[in-house]
């Protein structure tokens, strides 16, 4: 099982509590972006194009911890920018661990091995290492030679010290399914706890038919990658989300599932779109016109099948329908039955 039982139990308890309290919209994962500065400049990345004075801004430790409390989500994902550039990142992580939240520290791993001493292994902390494929694909994706090998070294070092390590991978329609399957083998051979995958996000003005074809291509790609899964593969995400990527389940987006907090405030409406900022989490939830977002409702959402909007929908399916619950249990116990 890729997700530890204690983490599953925490999420289950949290979701059931929301349901018992009849909370219609609740966050599952806080996307905490403490800075936008990165030590890579991956072509196509939409997170790092800002003037220098904005890239130099950092959320303080207090702002990060307060945001986690305000949001209340049981899981905190820390992307960026590159979070390990933040001089107080280990203090932020310690504070979040003290709050007993499950943290995914998303890193390109360039600074990871050097900074490992600052982090204590904990069931609450996972290093989620950005890996977009085998060496050739990854180094091309991050626009720098040698980064794959640096990341592999850092993963081995973290595992040796007893840290939880996962990988996160963004796949575009031009990915080669056979190479991706080999990449999964390589990551599991390294000993990571599990892998996370998602299609990339892009927005282009296009007729509806083209959007439909693009989503079809994404489903076909993931069907070819995830069909006949190997026993060794573990995924640190909802099995129903993987079903969705393969076209086996239909979901609507849950844009409030992964709310984003960064140096500008609470981002409306989601991790990918920037339509404005709220001062507080409550203001975000109350003032965002949620019905304006999602496939079929908004041109910018037409092609999107990204985890931050659809994984919460998959989790909702698990706890909201008998078929979702049954399928989740089956795929968790027998992942190769897909």
């Amino acid at each position, binding site marked *: 099982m890729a997700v530890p039982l204690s983490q599953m139990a925490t999420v289950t308890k949290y979701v059931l509590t929301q349901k018992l309290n009849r909370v219609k919209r609740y966050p599952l994962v806080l996307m905490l972006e403490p800075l936008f*500065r990165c*030590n*890579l*400049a991956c*072509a*196509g*990345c*939409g*997170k790092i*194009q*800002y*003037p220098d*004075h*904005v890239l130099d*801004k950092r959320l303080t430790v207090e702002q990060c911890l307060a945001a986690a409390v305000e949001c209340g989500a049981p899981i905190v994902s820390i992307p960026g920018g*590159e979070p390990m*550039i933040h001089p107080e990142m280990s203090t932020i992580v310690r504070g979040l661990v003290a709050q007993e939240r499950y943290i995914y520290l998303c890193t390109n791993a*360039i*600074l990871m091995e050097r900074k490992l001493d600052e982090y204590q292994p904990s069931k609450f902390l996972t290093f989620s290492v950005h890996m977009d494929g085998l060496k050739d694909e990854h180094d091309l994706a991050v*626009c*720098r*030679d040698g980064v794959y090998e640096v990341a592999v070294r850092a993963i081995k070092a973290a595992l040796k010290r007893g840290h939880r390590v996962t990988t996160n991978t*963004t796949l*575009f329609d031009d990915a080669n399914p056979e190479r991706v399957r080999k990449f999964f083998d390589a990551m599991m051979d390294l000993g990571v706890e599990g892998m996370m995958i998602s299609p*990339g*996000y*892009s*927005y*282009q003005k296009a007729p509806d038919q083209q959007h439909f074809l693009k989503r079809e291509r994404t489903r076909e790609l993931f069907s070819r990658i995830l069909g006949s899964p190997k026993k060794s593969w573990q995924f640190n995400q909802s099995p129903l989300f993987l079903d969705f990527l393969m076209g086996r389940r239909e979901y609507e987006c849950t844009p409030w599932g992964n709310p984003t907090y960064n140096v*500008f*405030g609470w981002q409306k409406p989601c*991790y*990918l*779109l920037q339509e*404005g*900022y709220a001062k507080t989490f409550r203001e975000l939830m109350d003032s965002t016109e949620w019905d304006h977002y999602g496939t079929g409702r908004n041109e*910018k959402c037409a092609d999107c099948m*990204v985890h931050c909007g659809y994984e919460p929908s998959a989790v909702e399916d698990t706890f909201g329908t008998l078929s979702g619950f049954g399928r989740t249990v089956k795929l968790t116990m027998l992942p190769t039955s897909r």
Partner: protein
Amino acid sequence: MTDTKNHSPAGVTGSPEGRIFQPASFAELAEAVELAFDYRGDVTVSLKSGESLSGYLFNRQVKGSDSSLEVFPSDSSQVRHIRYDQIAAIAFTGEDTATGKSWETWIAKKDLERRAEVERVAADAQARGIL
């Protein structure tokens, strides 16, 4: 995560970089503010008082006569709130940091150009002590 919303290919003239808007109506002003809000560079907001403020416009609230915007000034950490009715002009004075940053543009570049860019990014990161 690729986000083509904020990117335009190199050489495309869609970027408002270098342009100055002197709106004659609220509708024109609102349009200029939206353009500035989507812009990935600094703008200079000229106020009717004669003051001029340069920085990154990161938020706006459009509520009729109560409309306002928020700017991170390039020389201060304090957010400035500016009411729409105080604004005389908006100039796109900073570099558009998203222009030419799409994946397609990167792939279309010649190998030497790519190498030079990689070295420039690495040297910058090294100088900042983050590599």
